[in-house]
Every structure is written in structure tokens, then in C-alpha cells.
């Protein structure tokens, strides 16, 4: 392979996976320096560092989403407990508990997933409505993508959470208290699927923050 060609995989990664408003200038700088005699190993190192640092910069720039997602999903374990108790008392769902396994569990999980998704969508809608006042408006395709990605992420993380071996579930909701949920690290982790999914969905739904092209340097 020609020495002057950067590694194709690394080049693709640098061009497509580097986040941040400066990604174009950064990609050009790495190529310029590589063509001046740097090694392929150097190019790979710069690529991986640029992707990691770009991700961290973007998270830092969007820290308001992080804070909102954290605040919004913090009450999830307590709400899930109330929701489960409500279902347990409801005559409408009484037949569900008497179904043979695995159908009772499948119905229970589906209802919990459904409630989580509705909570996620409400959180996303509130954040996007608030951000419209102070930032650029979101476009329907981006919001749809955010909604889809967040919902899929939530479903996958929800399934993964309940698939974790040794997690203390099922929990007896007759005896567990809200305080004991937050005191138990495993049950406290119930916030995580909602938190990550909400963060992903809002991130994708919001317009990308790109620099406007400043006047050319003299």
C-alpha cells in the first residue's frame, strides 16, 4: 500500500465518528500532518484520541441534557413501585397474575416497558419544548429519529437490566419500600435504562451544533 495513504479504516472512522464543531478542521490537520511524514501508527493514535475526546467534548457541551435526564429519571424506581402496586390492586389486570408462566411475566414486563416508554416520551417532549425557547427549532425527521433510537435503546436496556444474573428480582412489592429501593444499588440501577435512553433520544433529536463559517483568514 502507498505510504502516503492513511489507513482506510482509521480514515473512515476519523471522518465519520469524530464529533464536535471542529471535526472537519481536525480531520484535515491529521491528514496534513500524516502526509508530512508521520507513521500509520501515529494516524491510528490520533484517530482514536480524536473520537474519544470529541465524544467527551460533545457530552460536556450537552451537559444540560445529562442533568435533565438524571433529574427526570431519578424518581423512576419509586414510580415503578407505585405503578406495580396500582396494577396489583386493579381488577382490570387481576387475570394477568393468574396466567401460567411465562405469560404472567411477559405481560408484567410488557406493561412495565410500556410505562417506561411513556415516561421517556413525556421527558423528551418536555425537554424539546423547553429547548425550543432558547435554541434552534428541531426538525421533524430528527425528532422522529431521536424518538425511535431512544425507544429502541430503552427496550434493549430494559431487557438487559432484567437479564442481569443475580439481580434481586422479582421483588416482593408488598414489602419493599421506596427508601429500600434507593438504598439497594441493584434496584437503584433501575434508573439507568431510562437515563441512557432519554439522553440518547434528546441528543439525536436536537440539531447538531455546528460552527457558522467565519470569515476567511487573511
Amino acid at each position, binding site marked *: 500500500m502507498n505510504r502516503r495513504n492513511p489507513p482506510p479504516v482509521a480514515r473512515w472512522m476519523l471522518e465519520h465518528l469524530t464529533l464536535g464543531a471542529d471535526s472537519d478542521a*481536525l480531520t484535515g490537520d491529521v491528514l496534513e500532518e500524516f502526509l508530512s511524514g508521520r507513521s500509520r501508527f501515529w494516524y491510528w493514535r*490520533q484517530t482514536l484520541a480524536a473520537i474519544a475526546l470529541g465524544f467527551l467534548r460533545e457530552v460536556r457541551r450537552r451537559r444540560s441534557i445529562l442533568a435533565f435526564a438524571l433529574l427526570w429519571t431519578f424518581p423512576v424506581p419509586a414510580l415503578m413501585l407505585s405503578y406495580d402496586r396500582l396494577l396489583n390492586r386493579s381488577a382490570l389486570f387481576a387475570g394477568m397474575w393468574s396466567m401460567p408462566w411465562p405469560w404472567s411475566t411477559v405481560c408484567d414486563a410488557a406493561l412495565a416497558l410500556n410505562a417506561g416508554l411513556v415516561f421517556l416520551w413525556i421527558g423528551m417532549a418536555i425537554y424539546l419544548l423547553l429547548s425550543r425557547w432558547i435554541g434552534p427549532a428541531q426538525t421533524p425527521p430528527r425528532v422522529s429519529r431521536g424518538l425511535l433510537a431512544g425507544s429502541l435503546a430503552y427496550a434493549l436496556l430494559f431487557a438487559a437490566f432484567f437479564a442481569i444474573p443475580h439481580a434481586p428480582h422479582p421483588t416482593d412489592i408488598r414489602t419493599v419500600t421506596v427508601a429500600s429501593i434507593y438504598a439497594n444499588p441493584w434496584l437503584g440501577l433501575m434508573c439507568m435504562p431510562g437515563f441512557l435512553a432519554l439522553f440518547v433520544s434528546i441528543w439525536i433529536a436536537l440539531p447538531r451544533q455546528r460552527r457558522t463559517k*467565519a470569515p476567511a483568514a487573511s
Partner: protein
Amino acid sequence: MHSRDFFAIYEEMRTFLGEFELMVILAVACLGGEAYGVPIARELEHRRRRGVSLGSVYAALERLEEKGLVTSTVGEPMQERGGRARRYFHITRQGVRTIRETRDVLNGFWRRIPNLEKGGTT
């Protein structure tokens, strides 16, 4: 805490220069009108005698720009850069004032420890 104290602390935190940020802004000042990613990274490698990633240089430049200590302009797309333009960075008046203040503070400390070169601290 008095509200004026709070805003003074906030302002100080907002314009506080980390070690790497200070080196980056000094490199921008040294390079004058030719300060873009590649020469800034080379200057840092030359002065620090160790490698630096362009990603960390851009992260520091972004923070400096947020603090109003540097500004940037985009050049023309260049064939040898895969059609990508250079982003040139310029130090602002506030940036010059900040590095002068930082220099004065650091010089004050260095003057208090003249024996450091000989291995002592008193």
C-alpha cells in the same frame, strides 16, 4: 456569601486557565497569524518534548474560545488536506490580559522559591 463574592468566584472559575490551556494559548500567541492545529501541536511537542494529540489541542482551543480568550476564522479548503479548510486561531485582548496576569502570578511564586533549581524549596 455575598452575591458579589459569588460572581467574582464564578468569573474567576470561568476564565481560569488550566496548565495545558495556558500552553495552548501561549503557542497561539507565539505563532501569530499562522496558528492552526498542526503548528500549534508541533509547538507544544517541541516545548514539552513529548507527543500531543490534535484532539486534545482542539478540546483546549474550544474551551479557550468559550472563555473568550481566542477567536477563530476558517481558511479556504485545500486539496492536500482532503478538501478541508484550516481553522486559524487568534488571541483576543482578553486573552492577552489573562496570560499577562497568569505570568505575573507565576513569576511572583517563582521569586518566592529561588532555590528550587538547586533542589531546595526554601
